[in-house]
């Protein structure tokens, strides 16, 4: 204690830089005032403000000041350290100082953006800057720890994003573990019939890629599997995957399909079939599934429920059915991870006035995709729920569950386009049928998208501008009997209209996966308010996350169409390829160490460490940190009764000094103490 006290007196030359961030900070915080105030701190040599500290010129300011004015410590007050700590550490290093002699004050996220009260924001900024100055004085030079990057990659989710990324990495010669929850890869894209605006057959462009994945030497495909545990950090993650028992011996199965044919249990296919068709209890989602071997769904299997049947086993020509099969736990190491878990379709049952689930002939968009698909349950015929009747009038309702504060405030981005595609498909299949598209605003930004809308205008679709208020079978007027009535304000006419139709398609929006929050926690990512994963930077780092080595791609980050999803899958893969190319990565030196001379050998810390990184030296009767295992959480530092453990970059002295600096304006006057 006494020793450190003396250290505080030692004068460091601190450079303080207050960023305006355009008006992001300067609009709320009086930057000039903070700068001038900071300059009065005895340790501060230079205090400056600048428009954009993260710009080249901003960084050069720091570099030049270090060189010209002999600064020994740097403080930048700007955004969150999660945003630009790295940037300014690099600048500090280029100036010739150890990068850890730098500290950041977060006056944007925690300051100017969090309040409109200019006076309070300025006061808070002073405190944060002061805390950083008092802290940085006690910083010590540290060296980063090199970590080797394991060239293997884990990709979670076998939709088009995961498939794209897997092929990119595998083709470059890297090994990929592709983990998919369902029995086959393909994702939502495999469920679609045509793709807008070019109307390519979705399966035709997707299945060759699926086959490539299935056959690739560099890809370990784990379907019907889920990631259970993720340990470690960039370069060396330890992954545990549960490979669920599919009751099929993969080595023996020839994917002949006889088991499926013979299985007597038929259930509604809520997965791939979107609830519109049936499947067996042992099934492949669709004939082109990759891998080709089926999955046995125990909940619906007659044998598992009643103890009798075993038809699949009886008929299997290669004895590939194994009812006793158990879940398997697989462990492997990877250097990087891509999360590409996709989206859930908004469940329109949440909007009761649209009648889905109550009114037979109200369909979801995915149901319609399956219906209009030639390999779907109706053989591609557009029919009502009775399976026969062709609709004479079809309503397509945009924005279901999107752009609505009661459900999701955001626009789902793809619905306008796929609704137009639906209108076109109805025209194509049933030329006599009238189609009504109900929209709030027609959103068609994208290559060839607006042109597609114009094509539909020529096809004589009725476009009614108005958000549908309700869909009912309660008729009021002649002509409405037995119909579904779509009630809407035609906002271009300013009139309420009731339009009787035979079929309604609800263009449901895109939502984050139901379990997005759990998955985010598993991989240490953040979710936004809507449950979509947070990218590191909305503009400049769209596929990286706040956790090094974990990347995201596709609709798990936000609503996206296929081209964008594919682009993200590729982007994530190329970022990882570049890390693999570097071979090593420098890690934060935030680690604990024990001062032998102060250690009493009480061993409290030994059991406290979650990584078993502290061992006891029987001979010397002291504890020791195994640096390679230590992750730097600091719980041992807080617990040591002798204060013998130092947490590098988070020492007691550093934290206490920051604390004292933060509270500069409320410190009780010293004379009060003795009063």
């Amino acid at each position, binding site marked *: 204690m006494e020793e450190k006290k003396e250290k505080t007196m030692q004068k460091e030359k601190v450079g303080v830089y207050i960023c305006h961030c355009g008006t992001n900070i300067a609009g709320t915080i009086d930057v000039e005032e903070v700068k001038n105030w900071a300059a009065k701190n005895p340790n501060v040599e230079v205090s400056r403000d600048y428009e954009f500290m993260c710009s080249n010129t901003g960084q050069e300011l720091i570099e030049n000041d270090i060189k010209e004015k002999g600064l020994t410590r740097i403080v930048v007050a700007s955004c*969150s*350290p*999660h945003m630009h700590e790295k940037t300014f550490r690099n600048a500090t290093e280029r100036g010739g100082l150890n990068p850890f002699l730098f500290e950041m004050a*977060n006056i*944007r*996220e*925690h*300051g100017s*953006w*969090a*309040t*409109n009260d200019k006076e*309070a*924001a300025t*006061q*808070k900024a002073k*405190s*944060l800057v002061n*805390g950083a100055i008092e802290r940085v004085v006690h910083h010590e030079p540290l060296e980063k720890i090199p970590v080797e990057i394991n060239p293997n990659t884990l990709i979670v989710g076998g939709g088009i994003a995961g498939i794209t990324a897997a092929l990119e990495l595998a083709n470059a010669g890297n090994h990929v573990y592709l983990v998919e929850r369902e029995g086959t890869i393909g994702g939502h894209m495999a469920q679609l019939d045509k793709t807008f605006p070019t109307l390519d057959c979705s399966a035709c462009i997707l299945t060759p890629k699926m086959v490539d994945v299935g056959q690739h030497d560099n890809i370990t495909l784990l379907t019907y599997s889920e990631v259970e545990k993720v340990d470690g950090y960039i370069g060396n993650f330890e992954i545990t995957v549960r490979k669920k028992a599919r009751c099929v011996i993969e080595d023996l199965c020839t994917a002949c399909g006889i088991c499926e044919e013979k299985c007597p249990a038929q259930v509604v296919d809520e997965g791939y079939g979107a609830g519109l068709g049936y499947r067996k209890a042992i099934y492949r989602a669709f004939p082109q599934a990759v891998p080709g071997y089926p999955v046995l769904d125990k909940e619906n299997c007659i044998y598992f429920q009643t103890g009798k049947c075993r038809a699949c086993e009886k008929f299997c020509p290669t004895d590939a059915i194994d009812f006793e099969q158990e879940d398997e736990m697989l462990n492997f190491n990877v250097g990087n991870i891509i999360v590409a878990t996709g989206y859930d379709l908004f469940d329109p049952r949440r909007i009761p006035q649209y009648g889905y689930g109550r009114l037979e002939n109200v369909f979801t968009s995915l149901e319609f995709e399956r219906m209009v698909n030639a390999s779907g349950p109706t053989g591609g015929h557009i029919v009502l729920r009775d399976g026969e009747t062709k609709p004479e009038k079809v309503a397509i309702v945009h924005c279901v569950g999107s752009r609505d504060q009661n459900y999701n405030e955001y626009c789902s981005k793809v619905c306008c386009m796929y609704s137009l595609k639906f209108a076109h498909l109805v025209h194509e299949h049933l030329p006599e049928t009238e189609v009504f598209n109900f929209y709030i605003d027609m959103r068609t930004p994208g290559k060839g998208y607006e042109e597609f809308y114009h094509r539909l205008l020529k096809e004589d679709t009725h476009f009614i501008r108005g958000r549908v208020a309700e869909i009912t079978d309660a008729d009021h007027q002649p002509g409405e009997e037995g119909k579904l009535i779509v009630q809407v304000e035609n906002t271009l006419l300013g009139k309420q209209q009731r339009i009787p139709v035979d079929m309604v398609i609800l263009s449901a929006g895109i939502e984050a996966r139901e379990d997005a*929050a759990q998955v*985010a*926690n598993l991989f*240490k*990512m*953040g*979710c*936004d*308010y809507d*449950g979509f994963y*947070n990218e590191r930077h909305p503009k400049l780092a769209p596929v990286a996350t*706040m956790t090094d080595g974990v990347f995201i791609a596709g609709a798990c980050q936000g609503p996206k169409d296929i081209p964008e999803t594919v682009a993200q899958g590729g982007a994530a893969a190329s970022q990882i390829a570049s890390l693999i190319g570097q071979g090593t990565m420098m890690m934060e030196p*935030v680690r604990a160490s024990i001062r032998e001379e102060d250690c009493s050998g009480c061993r409290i810390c030994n059991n*406290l460490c*979650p*990584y078993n990184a502290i061992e006891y030296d029987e001979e010397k009767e002291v504890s020791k940190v195994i640096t390679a295992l230590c992750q*730097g*959480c*600091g*719980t041992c*530092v*807080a*617990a040591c009764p002798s204060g013998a453990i130092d*947490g590098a970059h*988070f020492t*007691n002295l550093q*934290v*206490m000094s*920051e*604390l*004292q600096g*933060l*509270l500069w*304006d*409320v*410190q*009780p006057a010293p004379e*009060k*103490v*003795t*009063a």
Partner: protein
Amino acid sequence: MSEQFEPVIVGFLCNWCSYRAADLAGTSRIKYAPNMRAIRVMCSGRVDPQFVLKALRNGADGVLIAGCHPGECHYVNGNIKALRRYTMLKKTLDQWGIEEERVQLLWASASEGTKLAEKVNSMTEELRELGPLRWHEKVLADNGAAHVPVKEA
């Protein structure tokens, strides 16, 4: 309007969840009481009870410790350790007559910007009601006044 007492709260926020929650509150432009000043620690398990005491002694009216949800700690279970220390610390503070609202513990994941902001608001409101802490009068007065100078000198 009369001059309102504005408490100063020190927030110990863990690097992985709650500090990011505060970042998210900012990026989402959620406006909340500017009364909390944050210190970033790697884990809520790093929060040494003496940090809290130092904060109160040095003029803070309250301290918020925030970490990842139980079971979601970046360091396995550092937050549980924080909870244990917090529980013991509260007993001590209680004996000194320090109101329990002054030191609070919050679980906020990186996506819970709103939750963090709401907590800062509610805590600020509670501390406004309680008024300034006045550590030196409350804790050190009477018997306390005697021992401070003795020990240090």
